[in-house]
């Protein structure tokens, strides 16, 4: 049994967590819920020893855990899959999986064969078909998240903590994960599960603790609690969970073409044709790793590609993202920390850059105080902050994501391309973002969204394109249902299996 008693964490003036208590009972799965910035990750990091609490303590089986020491936490059987992952990108998959717990042989040398074998074992268990000696940096993000989970599992923990481990995963991967996790539970492990997805929580958790503004609102048994009650706990008010439907899109649809791509081809793409009209939201689905990310990057000129491209006032492929931005094509990366925010700079600057990124370098920049637009955007998106000059790295993940939206809105785009826009975003923020996407579309912007979440695609898109092995194999329109998209993804894969492989071989 693991017990948390009055954990408190202050970052300067910010109180991230104010006296949280809960206990993890062996053989159960415990959910930790809360809006973005409510302190879930902070609590998780204290469990893992990465963050030292300002006050409070953690007991593991009647023994006090030495806080602030990851090594000690691991020793006590606590294994954590972190929200922002704890991988070393330059090291291989196998080395990452056993990082810190390498078996050593005679004379203190690391047993490399043993590492490979154990790595292969865990990769097998996760049904991850990647060779153990590839550097982690070369993997797509979802594979990285799976590895992060694998790294926790390989420790055979007594206490497994999963912080939004499923956020970057697709359905079938989540299913696989759950069967492993449930197996662990049945063997007597206690699991703390952090997620913004209610289906997942209801699917496997026994109890849920809800945090709001760093304080525990309460712990409830899930069998006796409705979603609405949980949401009320999380945000202190009732909201409707109806998906945002495509009200605006159809009316302007086909009015004017915002983006038209023809036969985009490179090592990961096998000739993709694509059109996005003004006011339209186009989704990109499919199984994991079918070239979705590559497609988005190819469109904005971030990776090399052949083919043709047309946007308003511009014809031809973009040389680089800046070139794309000049034509009003903006991108929001799925990798927020590395390609999204400027962590050490202020909220203000992070948003302002949307306006000035493509301005002539010797022009006067958009100045603070002169323009209320930034403040308005921050308010419109309800970004939780205490000052506009605050460093963005101090915001929670969800709020950082909103900053990226504010930046994009500030740039007055024609086309917005998004990779997993609501990854790790809480329910209410997610709905806000969906509404925002709709209202952008309503204003005539064309949107292209890749998402690992079929529910999201169904809820917000006018049209969904299914990708398989670097090509678009299906287009779904009309009344979109998450299950249709999932089904189409799998069917697409099966029906295309034979010829898909050939096409791909040709393109290599």
């Amino acid at each position: 049994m693991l017990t948390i008693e009055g954990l408190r964490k202050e970052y300067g003036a910010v109180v991230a967590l104010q006296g949280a208590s809960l206990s993890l009972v062996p053989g159960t799965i415990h959910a930790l819920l809360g809006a973005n910035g409510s302190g879930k990750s902070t609590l998780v990091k204290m469990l893992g020893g990465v963050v030292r609490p300002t006050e409070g303590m953690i007991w593991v089986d009647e023994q006090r855990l030495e806080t602030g020491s990851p090594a000690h936490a691991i020793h006590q059987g606590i294994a954590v899959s972190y929200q922002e992952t704890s991988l070393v990108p330059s090291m291989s998959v196998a080395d990452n999986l056993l990082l810190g717990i390498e078996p050593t042989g005679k004379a203190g040398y690391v047993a490399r064969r043993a590492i490979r074998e154990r790595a292969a074992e865990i990769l097998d268990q996760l049904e991850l078909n990647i060779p153990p000696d590839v550097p982690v940096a070369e993997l797509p993000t979802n594979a990285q998240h799976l590895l992060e989970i694998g790294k926790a599992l390989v420790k055979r923990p007594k206490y497994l903590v999963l912080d939004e481990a499923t956020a970057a995963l697709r359905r079938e991967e989540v299913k696989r994960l759950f069967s492993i996790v449930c197996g662990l539970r049945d063997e007597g492990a206690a699991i703390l599960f952090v997620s913004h997805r209610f289906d997942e929580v209801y699917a496997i958790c026994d109890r849920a603790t809800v945090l709001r503004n760093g304080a525990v609102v309460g712990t409830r048994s899930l069998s006796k609690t409705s979603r609405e009650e949980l949401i009320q706990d999380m945000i202190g008010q009732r909201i409707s969970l109806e998906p945002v439907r495509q009200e605006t899109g159809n009316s302007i649809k086909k009015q004017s073409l915002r983006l038209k791509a023809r036969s985009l081809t490179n090592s990961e793409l096998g000739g993709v044709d694509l059109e996005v009209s003004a006011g339209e939201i186009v989704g990109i689905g499919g199984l994991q790793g079918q070239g979705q990310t590559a497609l988005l990057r190819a469109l904005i000129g971030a990776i090399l590609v052949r083919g043709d491209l047309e946007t308003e006032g511009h014809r031809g492929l973009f040389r680089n993202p800046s070139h794309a931005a000049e034509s009003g094509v903006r991108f929001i990366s799925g990798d927020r920390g590395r390609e999204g925010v400027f962590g050490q700079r202020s909220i203000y600057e992070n948003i302002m850059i949307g306006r000035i990124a493509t301005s002539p370098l010797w022009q006067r920049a958009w100045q603070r105080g002169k323009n209320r637009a930034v403040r308005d955007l921050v308010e419109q998106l309800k970004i939780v902050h205490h000052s506009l000059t605050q460093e963005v790295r101090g915001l929670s993940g969800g709020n950082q994501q909103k900053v990226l939206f504010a930046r994009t809105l500030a740039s007055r785009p024609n086309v917005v391309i998004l990779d997993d826009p609501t990854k790790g975003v809480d329910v209410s923020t997610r709905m806000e973002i969906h509404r925002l996407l709709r209202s952008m579309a309503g204003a005539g912007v064309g949107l292209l969204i890749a998402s690992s979440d079929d529910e999201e695609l169904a809820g917000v898109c006018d049209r969904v394109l299914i990708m398989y092995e670097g090509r678009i194999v299906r287009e779904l329109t009309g009344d979109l249902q998450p299950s249709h998209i999932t089904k189409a993804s799998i069917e697409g894969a099966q029906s295309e299996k034979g010829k898909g492989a050939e096409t791909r071989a040709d393109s290599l």
Partner: protein
Amino acid sequence: MAFTERVKQRLGQSSRNSLGIAVGVAVLLTAVGGAFNRGFVSPSNLLNLLAISSLLGLAAAGQTLVVLSGGEGIDLSIGAVISLSAVLTSQISNGQNGLLLPAVVVTLVVGVLLGLVNGLGIYLAQVPPLIMTLGMSSVIEGIVLVYTQGQPKGQAPPFLAALGTGQVLGIPWLIIVWAMFTLIIWYVLKYLVYGRLLFLVGDNRSAGRMSGVPVAKLVVGTYALSGFFSACTGILFLGYTNTTYLNIGDVYILPSVAAVVVGGTALSGGRGGYIGTVVGAILLTVLDSLLTTLHMGEATRGIINGVVLLVLLSIYTRQPKDA
């Protein structure tokens, strides 16, 4: 607890505070000098110290931008570019005011071009800046040797010499020129798109790229600017010394980096500014002058210089603990 946390945060994070500390230390060092020798704090010596700082300050201007641009930016070719610029201006102008303009134009163009080569090597060929600029530094030294055949000719035109050593109303022109440069750089960094983007891209280059910033132009351009400022420094340096010699710029290579860091600009990029460098340049000049005044032997000087630097840096470049 909360208090120590806050103090730590202050010391660890805010560049404004490191600036305050640097100013404080500079004043303290001056006072110590004054205590040992009244002449040290005489107005004329203080002005002289400022004039000397101005050359270092100018040499460190490009360095500041390059460090701010991130990606472990640093420019060790500054010394060689200064030498080459002094040589070029001296040989082309040959001591004549009439030829000064073409000499300056050629020098500035060459400075910018060399900076461009640095930038391209760093950005396109991805050579680490430290090593790229070090290698370029030896290439440029080679160019100087070949160009001069070992003996630089000419001298500073009278106009330039007046700028380098003359005064107006008792204030050395150098200080005035430096003040102007400072004002311009400060304005550029604070108000122009270039400056704003430099800080952001310096903080996170990939994010800059993905948000549509022309990162290549910005980063390569920053190295070119560094070449430009080094060329300016070389020209003024020629005015200061009147005639030049082959390795005139060498003395500025490491101090220019030190001035930037002592001024509170983070070596990791994205945080800091030129005003800090100005203070850093003054601080280092005062320290050097103080050690001279205190009759330090060369061995002791090296030791004291290092210790002072360490102590200063430990006050404000301390990294926050990982937790």
